């Protein structure tokens, strides 16, 4: 369907726009690159008006309410940006470039998600699912006749669902790019939840409008559906359950039993500066012992009654990459 690319969320941030323009430069398409670069002030304005307020401390209302209102207000701007993109790039050209760029951007963004405790498992699964849908949307399909009113309403619902997901994913990207303030701890989980729900709704809306085999296959097994976000105190926890074979329920596992310790390690980026060359013992959120002598560190754990200590060696800062023992 010719409308398919309009439903795609280009996740346009000033950064992604710049990366897209750079890619066009490298592809010897300087005029197209320049055309996209001229969009930057507009995109920056949209970010300030519709995304910065999402992270603002709430005076009234809930995060979900703010997300819904801002994503609706974002609709006409996204429509304009999509048309600008599509008028600059052909449909297929755009889809190919878009996938390549998202793939390139994802690595550094996932590192940032680790750093910021922003559920990298969920973000990577959401982007993978999204790319599955985008690839299926790119499949050529027979041109149909004019839609009935009912079909058109489905198309409108689909467009709204696409916008809502695009808004959520763009907000996540902007947070990870540090282009907008990091949400409060309670709102981080709410943002990821909103993003997940928006993706699944986008999938359902897509299945109504694009009824072809590739799309059905793409929508059959969305990974994001198997990822749970649960509230823990003021924060949240992302639980990536097992991938399931179709129709075959297998036992699923939650996060590592040492997830609290893993989170501690993730938060403490300067371990090599502080404990390089030492063995450290962690128990939940607590550093029980640190000592260059393994036995002394372990004894401290034993004295605390810890029968199965989590004990690891913190290497000194390495000047180059680790290449094996």
């Amino acid at each position: 369907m010719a409308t398919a690319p309009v439903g795609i969320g280009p996740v346009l941030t000033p950064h992604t726009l710049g990366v897209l323009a750079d890619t066009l430069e490298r592809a010897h398409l300087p005029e197209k690159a320049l055309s996209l670069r001229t969009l930057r002030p507009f995109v920056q304005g949209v970010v300030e008006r519709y995304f910065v307020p999402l992270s603002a401390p709430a005076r009234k209302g809930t995060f979900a309410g703010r997300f819904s209102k801002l994503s609706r207000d974002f609709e006409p701007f996204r429509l304009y940006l999509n048309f600008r993109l599509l008028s600059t790039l052909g449909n297929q050209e755009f889809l190919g470039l878009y996938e390549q760029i998202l793939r390139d951007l994802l690595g550094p963004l996932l590192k940032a998600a680790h750093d910021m405790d922003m559920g990298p498992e969920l973000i990577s699964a959401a982007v993978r699912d999204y790319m599955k849908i985008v690839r299926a949307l790119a499949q050529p399909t027979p041109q149909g006749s004019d839609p009935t009113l009912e079909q058109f309403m489905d198309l409108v619902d689909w467009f709204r669902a696409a916008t809502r997901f695009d808004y959520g994913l763009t907000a996540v990207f902007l947070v990870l790019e540090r282009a907008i303030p990091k949400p409060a701890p309670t709102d981080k989980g709410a943002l990821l939840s909103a993003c997940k729900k928006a993706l699944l709704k986008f999938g359902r809306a897509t299945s109504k409008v694009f009824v072809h085999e590739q799309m059905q296959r793409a929508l059959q097994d969305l990974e994001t559906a198997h990822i749970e976000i649960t509230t823990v105190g003021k924060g949240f926890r992302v639980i990536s359950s097992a991938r399931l074979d179709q129709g075959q329920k297998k036992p699923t596992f939650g996060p590592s039993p040492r997830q609290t310790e893993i989170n501690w390690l993730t938060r403490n980026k300067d371990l090599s500066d502080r404990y390089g060359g030492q063995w450290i013992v962690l128990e939940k959120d607590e550093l029980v012992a640190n000592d260059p002598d393994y036995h002394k560190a372990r004894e401290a754990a034993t004295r605390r009654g810890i029968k199965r200590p989590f004990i690891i060696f913190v290497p000194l800062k390495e000047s180059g990459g680790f290449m094996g023992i």
Partner: protein
Amino acid sequence: MSPRVDFDHEFQYRDFGQDSFFPALDVTLIGPTGEEDLIAIIDTGAKYCLFSGLRAAPIGIDLIAGRREILSGLAGKLTAWIHRVHLEILGTRFECEAAFSEQHIPRELLGRHTLFTQVRIGFREGISTGYFHPAR
């Protein structure tokens, strides 16, 4: 039709600092009388699972009672002692022959011998994501 491989577990690479992300898993090392939890890097180029020899005694293993092997690495050779242990990874216990290093090692590894034959492992380096399945 393309081959399809399924995995029970997906995991994110672990941040080892200095923007170094590795496919690593937390592992419970189980000996005759004790257990320890640690993090080990999945190393498809390593013959053995390799742990610090310091861990042997606390879990009930007499280090030098094992089978002695000289292991070669990029940084040179090291002496290791091979012992039969259990490793618990993502909720499944595996019986393996693992090497315990006599010398200091900065990182511990999950290698191929007797472990990789029991599991399925996949990598998507571009998105720092690994996959693990506790069966062949």
